[in-house]
């Protein structure tokens, strides 16, 4: 769907995107992750034909964004960080305008507008003027304008920025609902958001893609193994004896407090099922099992060079 090859974008002396290459398959949901100023927005703006690259190429469904810009623009729906809305229009009229601007035939416009409004849950405010809506609704109208012409590629720049926790959950559901029908590329500097929404992650730092893969691949690459945190009611030696029976465990660290034992286990593969089984069979009460707290954040910080020992 998207093939980027040694893409470069300079703003005068500043190199915002630095020889970036990647491939995104049709139907994938890809997250661009990076701190502010990492080059995510510039990359998305190049993809959506708002900026021309200084060198290199990027193709969307076979069409080059520089030479065949109009063909690319027919295939995309774009939501910038600040939704591009005309406040004086009603939601319905605005979506109608956006659909017709994107070449939807006049006879289909009504149906497309209703469909986009329903999917983005703005149908209850369809006759309301946009300037009177809350920010969460405005973001949803922004997504509705991006999907109203049913583009194969959806580009969302920081879709959750500025939303409150309830609106973030709504937005996450909304983006989940868009997967499959559209290839989705979204950016965020919030790791948990990307990891919960996307199939794959491209991590950007200072204009470069410093890592790509699934969340598991990224954390496995850095942690040199799967990390599992376990808390059981029992004694340290009981836990140690039980863990010895699980194959593929590389190491563990145990700490005992108030009658419970906390174990941080590193294994070659995901051994959570086996670990929980042996602990229960050993007569220990399993209180919790999962990823260690803050692991995702530490992976992110190490990848972007912000954490201790980062590159």
């Amino acid at each position: 769907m998207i093939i980027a090859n040694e893409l470069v974008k300079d703003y005068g002396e500043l190199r915002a995107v630095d020889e970036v290459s990647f491939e995104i398959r049709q139907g994938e949901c890809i997250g661009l992750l990076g701190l502010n100023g990492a080059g995510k927005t510039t990359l998305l703006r190049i993809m959506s034909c708002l900026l021309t690259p200084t060198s290199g190429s990027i193709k969307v469904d076979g069409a080059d964004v520089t030479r065949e810009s109009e063909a690319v623009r027919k295939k995309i729906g774009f939501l910038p960080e600040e939704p591009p809305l005309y406040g004086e229009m009603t939601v319905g009229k605005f979506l109608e305008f956006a659909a017709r601007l994107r070449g939807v035939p006049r006879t289909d416009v009504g149906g497309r507008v209703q469909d986009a409004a329903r999917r983005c849950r703005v149908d209850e405010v369809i006759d309301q003027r946009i300037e009177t809506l809350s920010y969460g609704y405005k973001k949803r109208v922004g997504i509705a304008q991006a999907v109203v012409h049913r583009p194969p590629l959806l580009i969302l720049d920081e879709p959750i920025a500025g939303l409150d926790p309830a609106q973030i959950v709504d937005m996450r559901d909304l983006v989940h609902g868009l997967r499959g029908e559209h290839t989705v590329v979204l950016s965020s500097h919030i790791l948990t958001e990307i990891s919960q929404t996307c199939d794959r992650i491209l991590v950007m730092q200072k204009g470069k893609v410093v890592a790509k893969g699934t969340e598991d691949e990224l954390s496995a690459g850095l942690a040199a193994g799967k990390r599992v945190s376990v808390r059981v009611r029992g004694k340290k030696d009981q836990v140690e004896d039980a863990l010895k029976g699980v194959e593929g465990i590389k190491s563990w660290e145990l700490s005992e407090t108030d009658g419970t034992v906390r174990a941080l286990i590193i294994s070659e593969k995901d051994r959570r099922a086996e670990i929980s089984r042996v602990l229960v069979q050993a007569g220990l009460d399993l209180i919790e099992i999962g990823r260690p707290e803050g692991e995702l954040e530490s992976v992110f910080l190490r990848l972007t060079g912000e954490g201790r020992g980062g590159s």
Partner: protein
Amino acid sequence: MRSVLLVARRELVATLRSPLGFVVAALVLAIAGLFFNLRALGGGEKYSADVLAQFFYDLSGLVMVASILVSMRLIAEERQNGTIALLLTSPVKDHQIVLGKFLGALGFMALLTLVTIYMPMLVMVHGKISWGHVFAGYLGNLLLASGALAIGTFGSSLARSQIVAVFVSAFLVAAMVMMWLLGRVADAPLDDIFANLALHNIHFSPFKAGKVHLRDIVYYLSVTVFFLFAATRMLEARRWR
């Protein structure tokens, strides 16, 4: 063409609903009425044609100022509000965006100038007017509005801020109007060139007198096309920055 009309219609409706549209329309109509009463009708007995000529001359000044004010928002406001992204990521060519916005603003100016028609009609109470003269006067004002709006559209494409856009446009329009002064002080053949480049003097005078010359129409259309082309190039250039 469909996209051009779509953008033009939205622009026209947005201008009609905006506070700027109301304020500009109110000021133009109030000042035009005042000038008509004081300058065109006042000062003793006059021929109806002279009253009309004075009215169209006064209206032309207001048309230029109103065009600058109306056009300042065309592209600068879109950029300021981020809505330019909606237009630039749609499969619409840059010149269609510029033309659509220009036509929307021209539609507003056409409505605004046509509302003043009651003033020439008042002349009919005590005098006799030529409808040809009225047509020529309004055509001249519309062509002048077209030229000034095109310059304003270009000014709006240069700046992110509407305030900067209005100053740039006002400077350009003033410079184009003042060309006739350069024409008076320059030596031949530059005097003719400057005089003929002037936005108002040589090319507008025939219209206010009820005369329509093809050369004047061609001049105003050329100014319009030139500045709209320049605005389109500016919009395209933004993608390279």
